[in-house]
């Protein structure tokens, strides 16, 4: 069991760092699925398949942008889980194994939802830790300011790491079973998954840009041009 957990260590560290990037530091969007799942895939030896997993997740993540102080899914650690699980059995392949890809996307969605909940708990934890130190803050103590900042970032790093480890431990055996038991053809599976992911992405674009004039018309024009270009290219 310990060796099993140690095998996950690079992914856990990656999940911790990318979980930190979501809010605490440095918000450079290394945590976006298209980067995070690709990195996880590269760690697992399948960067190209990791990118494909990341593309599906990126379409889904477009729907859940981090507005204000609302609760939103945490895609950093989740995309690492999706990238690792989704690229199982795809070493050097350009596309993921169909069963692993489906379970990887599901694992990432579930982890992102759970990650959103852990972020809320993390914020409560910092508030709990800060409450007895508010008098010290009110007296202008630089040490307290820095301590609060360091505590927040360190605990967020730990949060991301633990979340990644738990999600990998749960989803790993499910993927092993799914890869063996998968009967649907690879092309059909990919098609079904992409219909869902692209539809979520398209509806997200429709909703996100609705506030800007003529954007919906431009989107439809773009779709027509894109479909034509793909048809001629194919």
């Amino acid at each position, binding site marked *: 069991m310990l060796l099993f957990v140690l095998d996950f260590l690079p992914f856990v560290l990656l999940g911790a760092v990318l979980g930190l990037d979501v809010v605490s530091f440095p*918000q450079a969007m290394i945590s976006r699925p298209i980067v995070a799942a690709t990195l996880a895939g590269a760690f697992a030896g399948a960067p190209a398949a990791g990118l494909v997993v990341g593309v599906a997740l990126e379409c889904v993540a477009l729907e859940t*942008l981090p507005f204000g102080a609302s609760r939103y899914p945490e895609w950093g650690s989740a995309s690492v889980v999706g990238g690792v699980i989704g690229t199982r059995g795809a070493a050097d392949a350009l596309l993921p194994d169909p069963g692993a890809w489906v379970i990887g996307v599901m694992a990432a969605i579930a982890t992102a939802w759970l990650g959103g909940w852990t972020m809320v708990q993390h914020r409560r934890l910092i508030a709990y830790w800060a409450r007895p130190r508010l008098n010290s803050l009110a007296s202008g103590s630089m040490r307290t*300011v820095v301590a609060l900042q360091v505590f927040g970032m360190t605990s967020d790093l730990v949060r991301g790491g633990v979340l990644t480890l738990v999600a990998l431990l749960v989803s790993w055996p499910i993927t092993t079973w799914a890869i063996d038991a998968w009967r649907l053809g690879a*092309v059909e599976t990919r098609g079904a998954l*992409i219909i869902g992911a692209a539809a979520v992405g398209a509806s997200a674009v429709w909703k996100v840009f609705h506030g800007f004039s003529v954007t919906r018309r431009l989107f439809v024009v773009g779709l027509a*041009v894109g479909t034509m270009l793909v048809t001629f290219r194919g």
Partner: protein
Amino acid sequence: MLLRCLAIQGSWNYEILGGNGIGFCVEPALRALPGGPGGEAYRKALARQCVYFNAHPYLASLAVGALARAELDQNPPERIVRFRTALCGPLGSLGDRLVWAAWLPACSLVALLLFGMGWSALGVAGAFLVLYNTGHLALRAWGLAAGWLHGMRLASALSARWLQQGPQYIGRGAALVAGIALPFASHRAIGGGPILDPVPLAVAALTPCLAMLLVRLHGKVEGWQLLFGLLALLVLYSTVLH
């Protein structure tokens, strides 16, 4: 201070929100106050900067620059507190519109287009990071500099045309890119192949239908929830029923 701004949300919590982060970022400037670090002016200013504050994390650098300037100019404390409170709303809504609703999705969609055009894993991820962070870091650096330059007369910086009109132009460009990117990315993700094969045709026909359904269900069902349910059915079909 710019480096510290990258960690401005490091201690974000439900007690004082991002207040401590503002204090953390402004602190180096406060060392220049009379009495130096630890002096009375320093401690009072730091205490003022650590109370409740919330704004968009990137545009908060405008507040950091302006508040540092206001403190070093030794403006009356009550004026600084009022100014600080008044900044929260505009910096939050402007940042959300510019970054979360325009720049971030625009960069994601460009990355999806590059993927669809056949770029490598390193190329797509690298291009996304370079493109996004060019805007991200430029915005933070501009905010800090503009805040410092204008101090408490920040309204002129906030009314800059590119800041007010930028989201609209980025949104329009991103919508067009999205339309082109989705067919390209979908085609590559299913493995390419002739467009008139049954699976690519099914993707082209069913994706818009499902997308329209999701738009109709807006507010009732989230897309990721629906996708999770559909994938669960797919797993059931492919492993147990097939």
